[in-house]
């Protein structure tokens, strides 16, 4: 679609902010709408690029420039420079493309914006599947089948706070889709739960998975898990750092999800503690206690140290506790 000819039918003019219909979000592909950077920039040097509007006779519809209009309102700026197209000269599809390509050249889209764009193309512009798959998915760096696409649109129904969190924390698509597997209420409970934990992508994935699987297995809600005393104690403990809190929470969830494994790990750690191994000797269990072989690691610099380690190992082999350890695998 070529839209060069539109230059002839549009005009650049100063438009009063109050004449712009801010409720009409048909062409909105920007999230979130408020940007401190933009507000500060406008305060400093004003608006550099004109916005694009469509003249709907009794009002102006925003095609591109939502953030700028909202910033102007906040800064009490009364008018804004705009390229105005007439309703007849700029059809919906052209208007959408104009907005999309203008944004595409200037910035990258976040995940919520990508969902807004695809949803617009699919539901409103009714673009044909081939163009959609071959052109727009690659332009947005996405690769979906039909079912995944439907799930992806669910992102638009997320609570505003969650969407903002997703964008600000750059949450991965995999984690978002995992989050969306919960009910609306649970999504909000999870948001409140993870907000103070500041989890990395992998850790967030682990937490979401643990929550989902514990809920499904024990037929309980996310709130039931979060409200349990042990979790609340950690969340309310102000004497630990954020990273300590997140680590303790993950451990608690792991214990709930894998009770037998974590109990074996604890027994192993307790026995090792009882054995009082000298510094520098590390006794390792087989991974997940699946294989038979345990391993011992130590570092030595000379003959004396070798003798010291040998004596310690011999001493350890004579303790009763050591047999309990080997029974574990």
């Amino acid at each position: 679609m070529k839209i060069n000819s539109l230059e002839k039918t549009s005009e650049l003019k100063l438009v009063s902010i109050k004449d712009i219909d801010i409720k009409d979000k048909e062409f909105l592909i920007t999230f979130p709408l408020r940007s401190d950077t933009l507000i500060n920039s406008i305060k400093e040097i004003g608006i550099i690029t004109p916005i694009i509007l469509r003249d709907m006779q009794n009002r102006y519809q925003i095609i591109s420039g939502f953030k700028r209009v909202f910033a102007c309102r906040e800064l009490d700026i009364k008018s804004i420079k705009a390229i105005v197209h007439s309703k007849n000269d700029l059809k919906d599809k052209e208007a959408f493309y104009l907005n999309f390509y203008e944004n595409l050249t200037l910035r990258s889209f976040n995940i919520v914006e990508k969902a807004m764009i695809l949803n617009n193309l699919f539901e409103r512009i009714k673009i044909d599947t081939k163009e959609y798959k071959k052109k727009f998915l690659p332009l947005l760096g996405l690769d979906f089948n039909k079912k995944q696409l439907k799930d992806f649109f669910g992102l638009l129904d997320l609570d505003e706070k969650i969407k903002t969190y997703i964008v600000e924390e750059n949450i991965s698509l995999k984690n978002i889709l995992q989050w969306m597997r919960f009910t609306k209420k649970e999504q909000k409970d999870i948001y409140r739960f993870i907000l103070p934990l500041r989890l990395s992508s992998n850790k967030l994935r682990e937490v979401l998975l643990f929550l989902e699987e514990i809920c499904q297995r024990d037929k309980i809600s996310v709130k039931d898990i979060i409200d349990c005393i042990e979790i609340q104690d950690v969340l309310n403990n102000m004497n630990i750092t954020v990273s300590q809190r997140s680590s303790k929470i993950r451990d608690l969830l792991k214990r709930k999800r894998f009770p037998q494994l974590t109990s074996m790990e604890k027994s192993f750690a307790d026995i090792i503690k009882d054995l009082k191994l000298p510094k520098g000797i590390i006794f390792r269990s087989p991974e997940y206690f699946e294989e038979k072989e345990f391993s011992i690691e130590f570092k030595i610099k000379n003959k004396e140290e070798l003798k010291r380690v040998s004596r310690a190992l011999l001493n350890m082999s004579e303790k009763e506790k050591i047999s309990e350890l080997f029974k574990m695998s």
Partner: protein
Amino acid sequence: MSGFNFQKIYIDKKVKDYFITKNILKKAFYKEVEYIDDPCRILAQRRSEKNNIFDSKKTLLLTEQRGNYIKRCPGTKRHLCCNYYFLNFSTNCPLECSYCILQTYINNPILTLFVNLDKLSHDLDNLLKNQHHRFFRIGTGELTDSMALDDITSYSKSIIPLFEKYDNALLELKTKTENIDDLPKLKHNNKIVTSWSLNPNKIIKKEEMKTSSLKERLDAAQKCQKKGYKIGFHFDPIINYPSWEEDYREVIEKMSVRIDPKNIIWISLGGLRFNPPLKSIVKERFPKTEIFLGELIPCSDGKMRYLKPIRVEMYKKMVKWIKRNCPNVFIYFCMESKDVWAKVFGWSPKNNKGLENLFTERVKTIYK
């Protein structure tokens, strides 16, 4: 009748005159047939279209097996394998088991049936004719269910007679269906074992879609028993969930009531195991599945299994219930470590060959 409906059947022109092709065209429900020159082109096209797994089960491709029909089970690292052989007359399966490993085989975009059974006869000769010192157990259930489409393909009618001439082989037809109408009419000469995978109805309903119920499977087994077939049962995968003990014990009791333990040639036990990529595929296809809720951990062969003490406890209980109901039956594990064998039975085969020998003995004893 299996009652599967196919959107399309592709027929490789080279196989249009085969008995099975004609049978399928006569008996299957389908919307469209296309005769093709190059099945590879169709497969490549389907792969590029990224058709979903559901679609792949709705399309049939009838073609020729160019490789060997028979392959040895690859086993798995650090676990005992019984040296079983697979006879692959089909790839992909019309059934919908949530835990099915075939879902991770992306190279499998169509339900493919190999119909040039003259080549199978040749491949069987190559394997069996010059190895009289060995006994071979061969099964058709690696990449498909042995019987799911038998009413439209009549594979059993074509394959069973091929085994008549060999004294050193036994064919196992393993299924989750009751689609065995041809079997009672066929002469099996003690060369054929019919087997059923068993699970509690709760699991069948939730995780084994399009398969027959437990009762239907046992009814079918009983029909085969009446005609002198020896019967195998496979509790594989065993799923660990809150009421598993009660449910599996009940299945074992029902099995032993319906089938005379003297006619059970073997029972295998295998806990749920899968390659990690399967989980996300299954969760997308079957969001309500509960098979991943146990304590599953990665093992040395890369597959996920229940934590060892959980597996051992499950196996010990299963063995106890089976022995109580079928005292002398031969029980084995599929893809388990020697250590697990030893923990459950108090002994373990030395190696794969040792396990294979146990089977050979079992076959000799039961057909004595």
